[in-house]
């Protein structure tokens, strides 16, 4: 059985957003007890991560790490049509994930207690982001 649904999110600019509850809602609606769930983001300047969810400092530190790894306005980049965060947003997306895939058991996600699903907005301005959730199984 396949159940597929699209979700839309409005981000408030660069940062991580917990989308776990919305994904869980789709899994629950699918009625699938055992199988897998794929979460896919339709953008090249926002991405997905599975990340520690207990201490928000972890995500703040990830943001700090990314800023150092891929500095905004780096003179190496020529693609700056939409500002100094434009090309870094593309690189940050390539270094993280477009899609996440995890098992479903007993009609629920099987993520670890400290694992959370986050949408990572890499642009500094707010954006509307589209995600497709596909649940497959029995």
């Amino acid at each position: 059985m396949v159940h597929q649904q699209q979700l839309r999110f409005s981000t408030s600019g660069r940062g991580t957003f917990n989308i776990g509850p919305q994904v869980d809602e789709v899994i629950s609606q699918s009625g699938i007890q055992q199988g897998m769930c794929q979460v896919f983001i339709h953008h090249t300047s926002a991405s997905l991560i599975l990340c520690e969810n207990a201490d928000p400092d972890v995500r703040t530190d990830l943001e700090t790490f990314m800023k150092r790894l891929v500095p905004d306005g780096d003179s190496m980049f020529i693609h700056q049509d939409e500002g100094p965060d434009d090309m870094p947003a593309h690189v940050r997306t390539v270094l993280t994930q477009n899609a996440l895939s995890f098992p479903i058991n007993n009609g629920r996600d099987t993520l670890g207690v400290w694992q959370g699903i986050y949408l990572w907005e890499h642009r500094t301005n707010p954006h509307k982001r589209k995600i497709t959730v596909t649940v497959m199984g029995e």
Partner: protein
Amino acid sequence: MVYQDTLQLAEKGRGAYEITELVADFIKESNIRTGTCQLFIHSSSASLLIGDIADESTKNETAAFMAQLAPSSDNVDNKIDKGMDAIPEEMRHVLAQTSLSIPVSNAKPGIGVWQGIFLWERSSHAVERKLTITVIGD
């Protein structure tokens, strides 16, 4: 339903090559309307990535960024049999993706308007690449 095949891609030299159309044709051939599609590259010096197709320069700059992270001037003496670029390329491979997973919606790749699927060939030697595509769904 499962539809799978391994395709041989002709060597084109270093660079990023868009394979979105090839994937779209494969999905159409599968007759699967809703589900997921997994792409897997059987190589450690070529990888897969979803990139921005709005501006040609984003592809080149992702490559430039990766080159800066793992420069080809690094010492490679234990990989001399594969040529001087072997180790840094494999470093970049770890930072990129061996497999991509996308949704299939309405018998098409369910990806964003600005998203393109690329094979990122990093070897300067002439090698044919094997790509396995698996489409699962209804």
